[in-house]
């Protein structure tokens, strides 16, 4: 027998000091949510989904509500879920207007023969399986708008939010 564990993260980046406390409270709540599902008899997949839904619903994190914005001020989200027992996987890419992309990823895993659906196809699939679309504004926070205003260039975002060494000559992309 194994001692059950639920581990969560809220993203690796240059988290500013004003978000430290909220971010820590958020990951602690998400770990508790998943652990509660696990100890109540839920599967490891149930627990992983529950923790990530908790994080997606927390606007302090870049996922679900609170997602950052594309260059044209839209929200496009990606998610994946994998069952290590069967190695079945489900994923969505560039999905819009849903609260919990990880739930759609799980539907892809369980209801299709595919691994990933993207864009309009992912949204149509979600709608066909009863996932309610939300107004795009529901997902957008003032912080996301402020951050986009500050970083209007992808390479600047990468440098300022992830790097800790000298500025790279080129990212090779975008």
């Amino acid at each position, binding site marked *: 027998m194994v001692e*059950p564990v639920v581990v969560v993260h809220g993203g*690796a980046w240059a988290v500013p000091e004003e978000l430290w406390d909220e971010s820590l409270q958020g*990951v602690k709540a998400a770990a508790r949510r998943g652990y509660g599902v696990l100890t109540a008899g839920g599967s490891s997949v149930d627990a*992983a989904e529950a923790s990530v839904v908790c994080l997606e619903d927390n606007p302090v994190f870049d996922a679900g509500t609170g997602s950052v914005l594309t260059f044209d001020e839209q929200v496009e989200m990606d998610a994946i879920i994998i069952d*290590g027992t069967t190695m079945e996987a489900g994923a969505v890419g560039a999905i819009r207007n849903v609260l919990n992309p990880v739930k759609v990823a799980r539907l892809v895993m369980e209801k299709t023969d595919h691994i990933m659906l993207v864009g309009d196809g992912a949204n149509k699939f979600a709608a066909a399986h009863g996932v309610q679309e939300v107004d795009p504004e529901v997902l957008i926070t003032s912080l996301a708008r402020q*951050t*986009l205003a500050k970083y209007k260039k992808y390479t600047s975002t990468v440098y300022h939010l992830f790097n800790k060494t000298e500025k790279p000559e080129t990212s090779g992309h975008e």
Partner: protein
Amino acid sequence: TVGCVVVDREGHTSCATSTGGITAKMPGRVGDTPIVGAGGFADDQVGAVSTTGHGEAIMKACLARHITSVMGTGESVKSSIQNGLAHMESRIKGFGGAIAVSCKGEVGTHFSTPRMTWAYIQAGKLHYGIHPN
């Protein structure tokens, strides 16, 4: 980006990762998160991983699969994550972080970015952090 890895009492593992991407990304750009072996990986024979950071770098490094491959050699979970992140930094100049759990319940977290928020519960006890070390 957010993520979760789990192992249950029977050693069954799972991972999940979700993201809004990166600010000012090109519309239609998809990063590492939904890619098996990059944004996440789970195999009951080894364990589960969820990654976060610069998506293009993580995809090039196949970071989640890299970490589980090292875990499979018997390295500790934390050392395996450090190995994967060091490889990504040295080869691609990319930065990020990861959480992982082995099928035996060993936990690891590590990051090469300035910070990463993480938390885990094992045996009913909550652990958490945000700063390096």
